[in-house]
């Protein structure tokens, strides 16, 4: 049996026969087929099972509104579930599987749900799975998830590439049917930059599916001519397989192009490209979607939209049945019979809902067998083509809160022109204008309007002659009087009964109805069902449809893969990485790296034989404190501050005074937020009267720069001071330890004296190193040792670290990473990010004497407020475990000896901890109420999360060299 439903005609390429499999069985189709058309050509009727009742389902539509034929496509890691067979192009060797069935599509055990339907009505989850509550997570939810479902992912990493892009145009035309083509033609001929996007792989829209005439030629001839002309224009970009899925503020549109899904051999090209399109104007020419009629058993395989039946015959050369009954409530649906008869199909009955006889029931489980009428007649048929009217595809007009309006004459919602911004025009069927003539006319008009609005002259485009049959419809939604179920939303198994039950139970608003019954919440987002459901709700409420209202849609128009949103930002490229100038060198030394914001910093440098990071860190600390160590501190923010007002500017942004800092000196600076809390700390070095270099912490470099620009531009716009970041310009190394000077003296050029006398603690200067290499030197210490920070232009950073290490060999110099840096600063009692955490004040940090009384600064006034200066306020002190071997945990809270562990007794917390190889014990910094008065007392550090309770002694935060003598030698 091969393609027995295939007839002549259509736009498939019969020279390219394509093999594919469906549920393991081999089938053939042609290039230009979708999975749906190829399956229909082979007489396959049963293609899926419904979500809840596991009812047998067939292909329903011919477009992206398909609710039934959801397939799992591909193999291995490339498995893609929930793909609509109606839009998936076939390719050689394609593997297609049905979903939500066990053990097979033909025999599905859970079809028992259909028999249990009376118990599975609207809201049954909420009513049934209530008790006991603990069963929900363990039993009910897993059970429901297994039973009611869609396809499954492969569970493997996605092997494909995805990409993003940005496009700019004068006009974005959405949809390449008659209206869209016409709009693009007018705009393109006027020289505007046009993007024409269509979700289909072939442009032409509904004209691909109807045998009509334009200018006394086949309509397809016109389509091909227009596409050829548009393709020849350099100002027009044609994008097929591209869905515009969302409309955002200020003329921004989201679109996704499927590049490789239709290819048998997946190239290295990205599978999908996500586009952000910036368009001055847009034309929505997205067409319309046909809807069904609620009729008993109207979900059986073989019950299809009439327009789909025509599309399969005309576009794909495929018959959906050999004996087709047409049921229609409108003039357009009635055309189906003519098309089918012309194709040689038997059409035993055409039921016009405007007549007295109604369809009453449909027979056949896995395929339609017959239809019964209200007059009692039963007519054999293998396909029922239902035409319930057309819903304009207005979804994109709602994304910016446009609320559609109801038009009685076409019984459909159309865009509310007043609610759509001036950025968007709507033309053709999307606007409720259904004839080809109207589409062409409105497309041309929209094009001309935009051409004029953008200040160009519209070339006259002759409007082609085309069909202008009026669309006539008698609203007819539901066949009443049959107690069997009639489907409204086939994908989510919502029937007319569910809607009526919901109304009875009080869910009368459309929004509540939607959420209670799940009407319109499936992957088709209500394209197949919303308006029908609304009409039935309105009927139940005895209201008109406009009185009942409608839900509005949000992006995306059709589902977009998450990978497309990720684009190239995956795995290690999830975000950019910053590397310091010594990165490659550190890597060669076997450094272990840590992420600090975007920076990759050397955390520690293990040596052979070291099996635990603590061994390495302890060694680095001891070596630095006993001789000399080197640490890359390039990541600290550095800001060049120049101008006559630079000193005064620093005075105002730092809590302490800077204006009188001598040239050639550095000073520690504490920056407050305006609310009086500490924001950041660092240093500023003065190179001339009008030139400072500020450092910030690594973490706050960006926010401090932003804050300084705010102060400069918004608060004091006339201060003559200029800022520019120089973080990246200078590679900077801390050289710390008793031998730091001796090491540096080997590097620093002889004319620069760095002796203690000539270059004391907190000095800074421009020098040269290694025979004339430009450098800056700062005598700063974070470790508490004699230390310098040496910076060179970043180009020399790699070379300098090698020179420093080589020069330090005689002192057994060590490179140290962020861990040893952290240990040494805790030993020294320096506050860092754990202490300056946005919740602490200068007073708590023990730096209230820093806040100058002689000047105003950001945060000064509010740092003086009562609440921040309480007598029993907490302050930063040090802690040592009473038993030397005890381990401290940062985050532990302080509770008095013998007190209960509760919030009332909470006296503060440990902010930083480290093992101090110098003290051979854990040490900690933390905030304790009246901490300074309690030096020597004992208290408990309690960590209820990690279950530790350690007795600690309160001590000075300066564990090492409290008088600071080492710094000054």
């Amino acid at each position, binding site marked *: 049996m091969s393609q027995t439903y295939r007839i002549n005609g259509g736009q498939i390429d019969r020279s390219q026969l394509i093999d594919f499999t469906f549920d393991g069985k081999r089938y053939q189709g042609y290039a230009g087929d979708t999975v749906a058309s190829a399956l229909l050509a082979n007489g396959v009727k049963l293609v899926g099972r419904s979500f809840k009742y596991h009812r047998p389902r067939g292909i329903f539509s011919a477009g992206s509104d398909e609710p039934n034929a959801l397939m799992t496509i591909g193999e291995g890691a490339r498995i893609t579930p929930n793909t609509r067979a109606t839009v998936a192009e076939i390719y050689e060797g394609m593997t297609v599987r049905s979903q939500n069935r066990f053990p097979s599509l033909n025999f599905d055990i859970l079809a028992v749900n259909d028999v249990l339907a009376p118990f599975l009505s609207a809201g049954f989850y909420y009513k049934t799975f209530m008790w006991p509550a603990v069963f929900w997570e363990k039993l009910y939810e897993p059970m429901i998830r297994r039973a009611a479902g869609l396809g499954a992912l492969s569970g493997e990493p996605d092997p494909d590439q995805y990409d993003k892009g940005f496009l700019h145009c004068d006009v974005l035309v959405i949809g390449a049917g008659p209206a869209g083509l016409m709009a693009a033609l007018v705009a393109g001929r006027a020289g505007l930059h046009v993007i024409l996007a269509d979700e289909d792989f072939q442009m032409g829209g509904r004209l691909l599916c109807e045998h009509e005439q334009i200018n006394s030629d086949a309509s397809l001839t016109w389509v091909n001519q227009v596409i050829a002309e548009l393709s020849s224009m350099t100002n027009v970009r044609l994008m097929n397989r591209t869905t515009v899925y969302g409309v955002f*503020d200020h003329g921004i549109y989201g679109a996704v192009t499927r590049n490789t899904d239709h290819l048998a051999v997946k190239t290295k090209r990205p599978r999908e490209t996500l586009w952000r399109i910036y368009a001055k104007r847009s034309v929505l020419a997205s067409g319309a979607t046909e809807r069904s009629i609620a009729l008993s058993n109207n979900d059986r395989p073989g019950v299809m939209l009439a327009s789909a039946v025509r599309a399969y015959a005309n576009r794909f050369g495929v018959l959906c049945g050999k004996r087709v009954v047409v049921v229609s409530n409108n003039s357009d649906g009635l055309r189906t019979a003519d098309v089918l008869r012309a194709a040689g199909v038997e059409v035993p009955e055409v039921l016009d809902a405007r007549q007295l006889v109604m369809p009453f029931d449909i027979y056949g489980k896995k395929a339609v067998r017959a239809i019964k009428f209200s007059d009692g007649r039963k007519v054999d048929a293998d396909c029922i083509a239902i035409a319930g009217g057309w819903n304009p595809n207005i979804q994109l007009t709602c994304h910016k809160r446009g609320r559609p309006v109801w038009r009685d004459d076409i019984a459909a919602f159309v865009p509310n022109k007043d609610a759509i911004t001036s950025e968007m025009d709507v033309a053709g069927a999307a606007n409720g204008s259904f004839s080809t003539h109207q589409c062409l006319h409105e497309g041309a008009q929209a094009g001309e309007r935009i051409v004029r609005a953008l200040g160009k002259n519209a070339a006259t485009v002759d409007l082609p002659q085309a069909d202008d049959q009026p669309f006539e419809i008698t609203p007819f939604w539901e066949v009443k009087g049959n107690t069997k179920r009639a489907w409204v939303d086939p994908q989510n198994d919502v029937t007319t009964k569910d809607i009526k039950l919901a109304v009875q139970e009080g869910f009368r608003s459309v929004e509540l109805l939607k959420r209670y019954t799940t009407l319109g919440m499936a992957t088709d987002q209500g394209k197949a069902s919303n308006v029908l459901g609304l009409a039935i709700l309105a009927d139940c409420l005895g209201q008109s449809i406009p009185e009942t209202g409608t839900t509005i849609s949000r992006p995306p128009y059709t589902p977009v893969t998450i990978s497309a949103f990720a684009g190239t930002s995956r795995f290690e490229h999830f975000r950019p990485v910053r590397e310091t100038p010594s990165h490659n060198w550190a890597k060669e030394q076997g450094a272990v790296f840590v992420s600090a914001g975007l920076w990759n910093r050397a955390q520690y440098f293990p040596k052979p034989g070291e099996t635990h990071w603590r061994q390495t860190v302890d060694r680095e600390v001891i070596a630095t404190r006993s001789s000399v160590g080197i640490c890359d501190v390039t990541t600290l923010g550095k800001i060049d501050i120049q101008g006559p007002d630079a000193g005064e500017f620093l005075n105002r942004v730092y809590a302490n005074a800077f204006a009188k800092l001598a040239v050639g000196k550095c000073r520690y600076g504490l920056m407050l937020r305006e609310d009086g809390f500490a924001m950041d700390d660092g240093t500023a070095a003065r190179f001339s009267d009008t030139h400072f270099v500020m450092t910030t912490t690594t973490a706050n470099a960006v926010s401090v720069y932003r804050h300084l620009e*705010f102060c400069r*531009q918004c*608060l004091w*716009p006339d201060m003559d001071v200029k800022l520019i970041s120089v973080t990246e310009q200078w590679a900077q190394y801390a050289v710390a330890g008793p031998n730091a000077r001796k090491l540096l003296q080997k590097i620093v050029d002889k004319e620069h004296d760095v002796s203690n006398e000539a270059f004391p603690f907190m000095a800074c200067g421009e020098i040269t190193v290694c025979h004339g290499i430009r450098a800056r030197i700062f005598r700063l210490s974070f470790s508490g040792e004699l230390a310098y920070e040496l910076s060179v232009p970043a180009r020399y950073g790699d070379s300098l670290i090698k020179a420093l290490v080589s020069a330090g060999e005689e002192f057994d110099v060590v490179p140290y990473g962020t861990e040893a840096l952290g240990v040494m600063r805790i030993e020294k009692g320096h506050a860092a990010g754990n202490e300056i955490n946005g919740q602490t004040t200068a007073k708590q940090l023990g730096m209230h004497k820093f806040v100058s009384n002689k000047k105003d600064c950001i945060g000064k*006034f509010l740092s003086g407020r009562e609440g921040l200066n309480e007598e029993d306020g907490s302050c930063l002190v040090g802690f040592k475990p009473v038993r030397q071997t005890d381990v401290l945990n940062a985050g532990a809270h302080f509770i008095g000896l013998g007190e209960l562990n509760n919030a009332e007794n909470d006296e503060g917390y440990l902010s930083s901890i480290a093992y101090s190889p110098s003290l051979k014990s854990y040490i900690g910094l933390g905030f304790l109420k009246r901490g300074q008065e309690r030096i020597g007392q004992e208290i408990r550090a309690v960590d209820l999360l990690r279950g530790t309770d350690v007795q600690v002694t309160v001590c000075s935060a300066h564990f090492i060299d409290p008088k600071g003598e080492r710094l000054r030698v």
Partner: protein
Amino acid sequence: MIIIHPLLGPRDAQEFTYLGDASLIHRPDPEADNVAGTFYEYLYQRDNIAGEHRELWFHEQGDRSWLVIKRNTLTHDILSVELASDVARREGRSK
């Protein structure tokens, strides 16, 4: 969103960071009377406007200009964009 920078033309909003109400320009004079009250108002009191709102944005990924943007919070329409330094000077701020 697109912000039309007064010097650079249209730029995607992702280039900008947001601070808040443009009244933050008017940092109180610490020498003035009732400074506690004025700082409290300045720092903590904000109108939550449904409609036209004047706000501060920073062109972080661009020219590092602070901008005062008048934006309708209901529609996201941007009604005007000015350099904050121009606004600050016009509204009396200097050194």
